[in-house]
């Protein structure tokens, strides 16, 4: 691999250019019209404009990206996260053009991107999935029988459903018998199909995911991250390792993730996502992300392994370097996503010109960003301004340094979520890690977490 095209923008494009430079690989940035002067385009060895400002006309146009690769003589493509990163057809097109795709094969992306196929892979690897009925149940008696196997509370869901309609959570068989007919009728009206299925309802769920690396023949894990603090299903704070699972669960979960990777012959970096029932510590496979993730730096800080560099080495055909025994974790890391959003106005995104900025730094603080003084935050892409990632010898030390780092962060000209994140760090439930996937929304509404 001599010349890498980075098919992305923002902080992850900057991150990839830097990893490539560390390995002596030259880089090509692609950019939209709005990003002509962006940091990623200036740091790369070459830059090619691939279209107008909206992502649908530039970063999401696979042909434009491939044309830029051909024009500049790139021999590999790193997709980053978002955009084309989990589009199997893009991975296939890159390979079809004779280039190296930095990620798993198109077949693996497709297989793990299909929820039903991914669950089958998990079952074949002996990895637990959320207990439930595989398909629709035939009437209320069959539902009651199935619910006894699944275990209460259960969630009744419309097989044809979506958008939260036709969903009921019931605690026992009486509740199920009372709710079933109504939910089925609602589903029939909404979707033209009253078929219902069941799933275990996890009341207090934690979102824990295992970082993996595979080279097609062997696979290792780099421990896990917890991403339970979410708003509208978007992660806000992530940490490595999870403060909410026991060592025994950690051992079983990481082993399950590695088994799943072996089952698919996984190549590159990936993440196996689990739902953890906080009450019982049971964990269930949800899905696998076949790309680098936003929160990967937390894993880098606790393991000392550069995940993007490992992705590039694996893509270049090297065998996996770190053996499982050589991967150790040390201390604790927390990542805060700072966004150009106004918490006072229901998190309304706020693009526009910025003036002076101060980015946190100092001992054990990493700030991954594309932001520069006097930059303009474009309205076309996501609102992520920076990731502030902080390491400590233990979780308490990491949180104490997080206070300092978040206080240092300032941007003139637009509102950001930095102040809100700073106040979150002081919450007692944050210090004790007594949270689940609904906690942040409760807190923002002013309820007790």
């Amino acid at each position, binding site marked *: 691999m001599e010349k890498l095209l980075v098919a992305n923008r923002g902080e992850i494009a900057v991150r990839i250019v830097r990893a490539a430079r560390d390995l002596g690989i030259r880089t090509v940035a692609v950019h939209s019209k709005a990003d002509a002067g962006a940091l990623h385009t200036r740091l790369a060895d070459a830059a090619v404009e691939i279209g107008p400002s*909206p992502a649908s006309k530039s970063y999401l146009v696979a042909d434009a990206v491939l044309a830029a690769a051909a024009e500049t003589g790139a021999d590999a493509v790193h997709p980053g996260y978002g955009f084309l990163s989990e589009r199997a057809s893009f991975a296939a097109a890159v390979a079809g053009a004779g280039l190296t795709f930095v990620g798993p094969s198109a077949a693996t992306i497709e297989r793990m991107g299909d929820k039903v196929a991914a669950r089958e892979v998990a079952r074949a690897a002996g990895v637990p999935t959320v207990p439930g009925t595989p398909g629709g149940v035939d009437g209320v008696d069959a539902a009651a029988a199935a619910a006894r196997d699944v275990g209460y509370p259960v969630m009744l869901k419309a097989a044809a459903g979506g958008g939260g309609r036709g969903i009921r959570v019931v605690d026992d068989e009486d509740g199920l018998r009372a709710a079933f007919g109504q939910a089925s009728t609602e589903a029939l009206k909404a979707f033209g199909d009253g078929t219902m299925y069941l799933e275990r309802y996890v009341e207090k769920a934690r979102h824990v995911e295992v970082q993996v690396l595979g080279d097609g023949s062997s696979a290792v894990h780099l421990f896990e991250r917890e991403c339970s603090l979410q708003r509208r299903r978007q992660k806000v704070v992530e940490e490595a390792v999870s403060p909410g699972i026991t060592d025994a669960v950690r051992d079983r979960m990481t082993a399950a993730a590695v088994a799943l990777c072996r089952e698919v012959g996984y190549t590159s970096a990936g993440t196996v996502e689990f739902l953890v029932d906080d009450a019982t510590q049971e964990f269930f496979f949800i899905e696998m992300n076949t790309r680098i993730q936003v929160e990967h730096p937390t894993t880098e800080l606790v393991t000392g392994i550069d995940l993007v560099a490992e992705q590039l080495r694996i893509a270049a055909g090297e065998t996996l370097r770190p053996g499982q025994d050589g991967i150790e974790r040390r201390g604790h890391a927390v990542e805060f996503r700072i966004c150009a*959003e106004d918490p006072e106005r229901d998190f*309304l*995104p706020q*693009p*526009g010109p910025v003036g002076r900025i101060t980015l946190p730094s100092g001992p054990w603080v990493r700030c991954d960003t594309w932001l520069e003084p006097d930059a303009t935050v474009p*309205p076309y*892409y*996501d*609102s992520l301004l920076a990731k502030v990632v902080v390491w400590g010898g233990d979780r308490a030390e990491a949180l104490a340094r997080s206070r300092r780092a978040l206080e240092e962060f300032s941007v003139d000209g637009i509102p950001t979520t930095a102040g809100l994140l700073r106040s979150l760090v002081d919450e007692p439930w944050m210090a004790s890690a007594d949270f689940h996937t609904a906690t942040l929304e409760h807190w923002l509404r002013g309820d007790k977490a």
Partner: protein
Amino acid sequence: MSRHEVVSPIPGVFYRRPDPDSPPFAEDGSAVSGDSPVGLVEVMKSFHQIAAGASGTLVEFLVGDEDEVDAGQPVAVIEIG
């Protein structure tokens, strides 16, 4: 008759339809009320509906579907009454 300009409160990309498979919120000549939607603005991957803000007849769109708009930019004209 007075004219009312519908203004986008935020910068972004203007869409005349709720999704690519649906008809436009309104056409030239449509009767609208104050809370009738006339378009969507996508800003940083979130979508915000723009209401007419006055009752009357939508006589003209000032921007095209998928055009970029600035905060404060008029996007449509309504004749009140």
